[in-house]
């Protein structure tokens, strides 16, 4: 088949916008579009015009049964998803850390050894730490992949880094975080398209702390830390004290 030219494109573009091309023509058309992306805007406009036909239909009401059936499936899936999240939360930190630190692909270098050894004291059992350290020591050193969070005056002396580990997961490692008081906590937010999702809590204490970020960084634009009431918030209630663009 000969390659589509501009003239043939012009001849078929309306039919394409109306989805009225045969399969082979459609493929040929899309190959042309891939080679000539500057013509995509033209197609987008024609497609917008074609899609107006959808608004010309006589209004029809779907049956209430459709909504009931659909919501029954949706709510069932939402329940399963919530139960899985709870189960995941109950999984020990050790399991999660060893998961993140899938050692052949570990993004931490030797520095992480000391960090993990020190920082985990607050959150995992000593036996687990020894196992973890032992496994890390056996792992090949990988290039670190850290993101530094910058802060306000109050957090000027703090060193906070996100260490990306497996896939789009990360561990937050911090030193010298300022105290926030008994009634407060620090909370991590992973921000995607201006929507913050909680990435877990960080309780300042000791010289070094770490916590796995519970949200994937995939597609995220920023990571921020705010001061929140103890227990954390559904959404940020204060301005970030530290943040980093991803």
């Amino acid at each position, binding site marked *: 088949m000969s390659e589509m030219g501009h003239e043939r494109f012009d*001849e*078929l573009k*309306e*039919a394409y*916008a*109306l*989805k*009225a*091309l*045969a399969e082979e*023509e459609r493929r040929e058309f899309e190959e042309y579009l891939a080679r000539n992306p500057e013509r995509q805007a033209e197609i987008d*406009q*024609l497609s*917008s*015009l*074609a*899609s*107006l*036909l*959808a*608004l*010309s*239909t*006589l*209004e*029809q*009401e*779907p*049956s209430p049964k*459709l*909504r009931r*059936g*659909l*919501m029954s*499936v*949706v*709510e069932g*899936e*939402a329940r399963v*998803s*919530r139960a899985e999240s709870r189960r995941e939360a109950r999984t020990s930190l050790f399991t999660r850390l060893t998961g993140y630190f899938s050692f052949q692909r570990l993004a931490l270098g030797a520095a992480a050894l000391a960090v993990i050894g020190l920082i985990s004291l607050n959150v995992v059992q000593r036996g687990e730490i020894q196992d973890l350290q032992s496994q890390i020591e056996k792992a090949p050193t990988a290039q670190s992949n850290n993101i530094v969070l910058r802060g306000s005056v109050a957090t000027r002396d703090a060193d906070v880094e996100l260490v990306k580990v497996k896939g789009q997961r990360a561990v937050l490692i911090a030193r010298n975080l300022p105290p926030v008081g008994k009634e407060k906590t620090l909370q991590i937010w992973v921000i995607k*398209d*201006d*929507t*913050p*999702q909680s990435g877990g809590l960080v309780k300042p204490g000791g010289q070094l702390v770490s916590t796995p970020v519970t949200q994937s960084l995939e597609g995220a634009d920023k990571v921020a830390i705010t001061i929140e009431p103890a227990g954390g918030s*559904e*959404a940020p209630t204060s301005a970030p004290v530290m943040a980093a663009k991803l």
Partner: protein
Amino acid sequence: MVVANGNQNYLLLADEDLIALAETGDSKAFAGIYDRHSRAAFSLAYRMMGERQTAEDLVQEVFLKIWRSAASYRVERGSVRTWILSIVHNRGIDLLRSSASRRRTQDKVQASATMSQPSEAFAETWRNTQRDQVREALKTLPPEQLKILELAYFSGYTHMEISDLLDLPLGTVKGRMRLGLKKIKDYFASRDLAIPG
């Protein structure tokens, strides 16, 4: 910034925010999307499939897809409504073109032609301004152009099939498609109206 708050009033949230919440597994946000757009989705599905049950099956499939892949919505590609209607349309075309559903006959073409008559098709009370504008825009089309657009858009016929069905040269079919879409565009441009999206 979307706040996932158990006490929030979903009615006050924009479609884009509801989609973002649905993406996090918020079934109430999804219900909000359904309540706002199921009527338009069903109207399109019914117009395409011609039967209530098939149309409801199609709408159910589409909304489940939306629930399970809300993250695939991209605001830069258009409104949530346009996105939902495009999924209904694409899936409807697939069904119409599948061999099992390929029961479209000349009768249906005739029925479609009848429905294209402005006096009948536009007798309904339109619910909102955008629908009114689209109705007015389509009124400017000669019936032979509107019929070809509808056969392609609602019935899933290719331009070559339309040429066969109506016994018209392929060039005439393409020409009517071109003129039909151009008239719709001109309608909005001449009134300085934004094309609903």
